[in-house]
């Protein structure tokens, strides 16, 4: 009995475990990935990322009303008082509103507060004072966030740099631990995941703020985790399995790790859904980015990185540990 079961020239079982022909669909998967990435880039180009307060600068005031207000009334009230471009949305419940003021209004405020002592009154207090006049009940100030436009720009630059830096360091580590073909595969998978998550946010016009950036970086970590587990197994099998070509070895490896890949994705998704549904509005987009990222990351660890390994023509020789020159000589009589 041999280690593999072969039917019609294909390995269907290895070590008693069914082998799925993952790589049979690799061209289709590649097409799918390309379409998804292109669509994401298109969404990013057309809609652009809707940067949140952290990156654009501006002011957000979250208030709780005793009596549920009409959004239009509140907006009118704000615009009349000189807060042009104010947007008002419900936040969580009917009684809670989130008011956003554009960067220009915020800048006017900061400039003023730099000069006169009167203007040091917080923009949040001013807004709440104004809103109290327009309602019968009380208005409770729940949260104010004011970010100067310059800070926003810096955060944006730092975020972008951080993401690139993370990719480069990871590529270096993988190249060192495995082999450069793996690192190309791993990084391609990461870029694939990041672009799709960003594209998803651009497509649905969701706010992209600091917490979402953190989520995207966490996706890099997660997807990498997955990719490395798969890569580890591919390397092992290249050294171990005889009489199988690259495609078969990759299929065997993917089949072996499939259980673990699904299991980990499921447990992670489980906690992410807990965050999504019970974590409150503040980390809603954070958990959403992670959910999308984990789904895409799971797919990419199977179809993107392995696909690139195939495309780069990975061979057994790539995987053999480098032989010391002296070692061969010693064995000679």
């Amino acid at each position, binding site marked *: 009995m041999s280690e593999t079961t072969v039917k019609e020239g294909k390995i269907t079982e290895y070590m*008693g475990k069914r082998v799925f022909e993952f790589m049979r669909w690799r061209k289709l998967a590649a097409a799918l990935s390309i379409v998804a990435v292109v669509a994401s880039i298109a969404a990013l180009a057309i809609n652009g990322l809707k940067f949140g307060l952290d990156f654009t600068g501006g002011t957000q005031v979250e208030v709780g009303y005793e009596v549920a207000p009409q959004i239009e009334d509140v907006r009118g009230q704000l615009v009349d008082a000189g807060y042009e471009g104010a947007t008002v949305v419900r936040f969580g419940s009917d009684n809670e509103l989130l008011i956003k003021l554009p960067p220009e209004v915020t800048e006017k405020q900061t400039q003023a507060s730099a000069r006169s002592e009167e203007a040091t009154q917080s923009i*949040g*207090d001013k807004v709440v004072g104004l809103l109290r006049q327009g309602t019968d009940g009380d208005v409770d100030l729940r949260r104010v966030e004011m970010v100067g436009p310059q800070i926003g720009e810096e955060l944006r630059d730092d975020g972008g740099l951080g993401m690139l830096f993370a990719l480069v360091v990871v590529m270096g580590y993988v190249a060192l631990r495995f082999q450069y073909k793996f690192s190309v595969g791993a990084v391609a998978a990461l870029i694939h995941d990041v672009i799709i998550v960003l594209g998803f946010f651009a497509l649905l016009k969701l706010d992209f703020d600091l917490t979402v950036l953190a989520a995207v970086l966490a996706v890099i*970590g997660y997807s990498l*985790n997955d990719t490395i587990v798969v890569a580890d197994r591919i390397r092992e099998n290249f050294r171990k399995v005889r009489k199988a070509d690259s495609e078969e070895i990759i299929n065997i490896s993917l089949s072996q790790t499939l259980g673990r890949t699904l299991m980990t994705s499921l447990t992670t998704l*489980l906690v*992410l859904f807990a965050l999504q549904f019970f974590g409150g509005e503040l980390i809603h987009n954070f958990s959403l980015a992670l959910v999308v990222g984990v789904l895409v990351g799971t797919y990419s660890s199977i179809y993107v990185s392995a696909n690139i390994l195939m495309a780069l023509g990975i061979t057994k020789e790539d995987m053999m540990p480098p032989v010391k020159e002296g070692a061969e000589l010693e064995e000679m009589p």
Partner: protein
Amino acid sequence: MHFHGCARISSDIAKLYRPAGLNYNNESSMNRYPIWKYLLILTVVALGFLYAAPNLYKPDPAVQISGQSTTMEIDQQLLARAEKALDEAGIEHFGGEVGEKAVLLRLGSVEDQLPAKRVIQESLGHSDYVVALNLASTTPEWLADLGASPMKLGLDLAGGVHFLMEVDTATIVRTNMEGYVQDVKAKLRAADARYRSVSLEDDREIVARFRSEELRDKAMSTMRKEFPELQLTEAGSGDNLEVRATLSEQEIKQLEDYAVTQNLTTLRNRVNELGVAEPIVQRQGRNRIVVELPGVQDTAEAKRIIGKTANLEYRMEARPDTLVTNKEYFEYRNEQQRQAYGGAWLERKVIIKGDRVTNARVGYDESGLPQVNITLDARGGELMHRATWKNVGRRMGTLFIESRFEPETVVDDQGNETVVQKRTDVKKIISLATVQSALGRQFRITGLDSAAEAQELALLLRAGALAAPMYFVEERVIGPSLGADNIQVGVKSVQIGLIGVLIFMLIFYRVFGLAANIALAVNLVLLVAVMSILGATLTLPGIAGIVLTVGMAVDANVLIFSRIREELRNGMPPQTAISAGFDNAYSTIVDANITTLIVAVILYAIGSGPVQGFAVTLSIGILTSMFSAIMGTRALINLFYGGRRVQKLWI
């Protein structure tokens, strides 16, 4: 489910996959940990529980009373006065304690905090003591003695305000250069190097113009000698010859550093006026300062105090014959001096205010006695000179002004009541010294009793001055109700996520799942313990990091278990399969975790507030999960299966 029984056994496969050094015939002696390993794990887990425990004790709402200056006595008597005030107002309190710097009084409920603060402040008076809201730890003493303390809560969980202020460093460079212009003029005059003009260009370059080469050469050598820190270049031609002087990049950086440090000190003093327990005032980057005030709700008040400028005044002492309308009486700020001398009459006319003071440092004179060296800006120097050159031999006083804001109810014409913040300035003398000679930009105060006194005086003198203007570039306020909500949703999502994962693991891996679950629970305890020991701050994104850790921590176990199942399927006997499963999964787990850790560290390095909170819990979670998922689970499995004959694994 794959059990041992379903796996096909074939001896040649078993041989093929026999890991080196393992003996199949000796299954019953496998998977045993030496006793020290169990002890090590037990110790770590016990320590984890110990240091995580303080987080279980909910802190009591409290008020804290500290002195306005270091000379104020903090004693049992003060506590008694505060307790009396609370008793009279009918506010429930308990567990008063006298600490080194403050008195702490615990209250029955959070709602009592504000009224308690008010009645105590009223009864003690505003000038001597600061009353602040605080939370008193209820950690048992034996735990506290071990250095165990609960995690700090971030602003998003505790409520409070966060300001980011930018120091306008361009201004400090300009003011400094303006000062140089005056000094250069004076030195050139003294050296008889007649100039046509000396002026400042672009706020950072001094240009001195001369009619002849000879005068310019003289000026060059004078300036080189007197101002070695300036970089000089020659320019111009004919009868318009110039010397251009700039500060080196390094000097400018030093100036900026000084300005930021100075503003930091000033801000700390002002924040202390606010009476906030555990405020954070920190430098961020090259020219920014972060101020975090947990528990503060009234941003207007906070901003007023933080943003105000002058709070020092220099005035001449009044002559005995000065009219009462032209003089004012002030008390000494220092208690000993107040008891000895009471106060003094000063003129109403203010020579300069604190915003003209650029520096005040402790120094020592020739005989080693402490003194305070004061530097003013250019305009301040002129004013000081004008005021003192005719008044040598008289005394000059320095007033320290503390502003307090108290809520006051105002009734307008229509009878509507509004609460306004009423500002009162309390002015007290911190120094009264005889003018020995005409003073300029730099002068010193001598005749101080001790180095400590000099230190405090210098601090107070500096407290008045912002070296450079600042403005708010970021402001975040989180209401206390939102903070409480955030804690609640955070805890709930951790609970639900955790329960989900526990059930999942149990269904899929049975006995092994149980071991993984115990390891996961231990991991959470260790995570909390490490965060408490490091004094890390827990934020809402931090909780998200914990939730994610829960999901990802089981990954290591999933890797190991699926490997064990595989080995069983390959026909390995149970004990060997366990051992091989753990061994083979090890390097994969390490690789996967190291890369995630790299990402977490980068997140921490580039991120601010929310991102860092997430990165901290994620990194700590990765490290603790490596311990609990690899060593912890192995120990449990060994305990359960190890060292005996096993027919079948419940995996």
